[in-house]
């Protein structure tokens, strides 16, 4: 009885943390911060998959969703910041902006 209650509390905490991370990711206005929160979200989601008894999905989520997806999003955020800074430095007409 207490074991099931403890597991229920554990599951509710897992889900609330997952939803909190999702909201924090979506409502973050700094791309880099959002990317890092997305990685945290992916790692937490892989824990939830493992708790659901799906270790294959948990492995794929941690390796691809959180790891490589996070790395890709981080580098995209870095590139977006570099290009927006370049744009801010040179307020001349937008003919020289790189088509990235």
């Amino acid at each position, binding site marked *: 009885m207490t074991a099931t209650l403890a597991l229920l509390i554990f599951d509710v905490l897992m889900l609330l943390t997952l939803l909190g991370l999702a909201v924090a990711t979506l409502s973050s206005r700094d791309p880099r911060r959002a990317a890092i929160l997305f990685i945290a979200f992916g790692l937490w989601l892989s824990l939830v998959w493992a708790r659901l008894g799906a270790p294959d999905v948990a492995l794929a989520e941690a390796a691809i969703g959180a790891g490589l997806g996070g790395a890709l999003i981080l580098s995209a955020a870095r590139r977006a910041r570099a290009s927006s800074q370049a744009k801010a430095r040179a307020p001349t007409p937008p003919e020289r902006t790189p088509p*990235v």
Partner: protein
Amino acid sequence: MRNSLEPKPQRSAALLVVVLLILLAGLLQWVYFTHAATAPGAGLTALAQAELPRSGVTNPVTAVLLNYRALDTLLELSVLLTAMLGIWSLGPATPGYQQAGAVFAGLAAWVVPLLILSGGYLLWIGAKAPGGAFQAGALLAAAGVIQRLGGDPRASLPNESAQRWLAIAGIGIFALVGLATLVAGRGFLDYPLAWAGWLILLIETFATLTIATLLTAAYVGGQPPPSQTTATPGMHRMQAPDRKA
């Protein structure tokens, strides 16, 4: 240090997105519960478990991915290849990061062999336990990402023509095995029982190489830089690419 990508979105647009998301969630719930009402029970689980001895592997997930629904996996690899073609069409990659310092280089010297070893382990164990080509490929690609962060502009990938061959190797072997089963008078990717395990391992090995190449190339983010520019110490990060493609 505010660097939001876009101007503040319209309040009504944000509300519309929320409403659409709630509608989508409701639709998914409706599909799930109507499906659960019309088809109670475990669905295809019993059938998949019953056919497992004839699939060549003992891990049911690998059996689904590489045997029952092998065509889906073949198409997934094609989707990855299409994504990389799109990324390469963006032009040459940025030069990369500056050379790693002693600490990061030492970390990479330990972590990269460990990642390669873990990738091989996941590939092999996928036949009977959680693991498989996608996870193994992702670990190899993580090794490539670390090499790129450590200053290798090509992330340890070979030259461009070899990358092209690696990028299609998994899909090519997959399709060749399918054609061979067709020629042998069976269905497309319908393996003979005696060879099923080895054919799956063959396909997964090349699929791992292809997935690792595609994911690493996606992280490099453009056509690979030519080989003579490898790792000159004066390479600056975030330097705009000034050479023409």
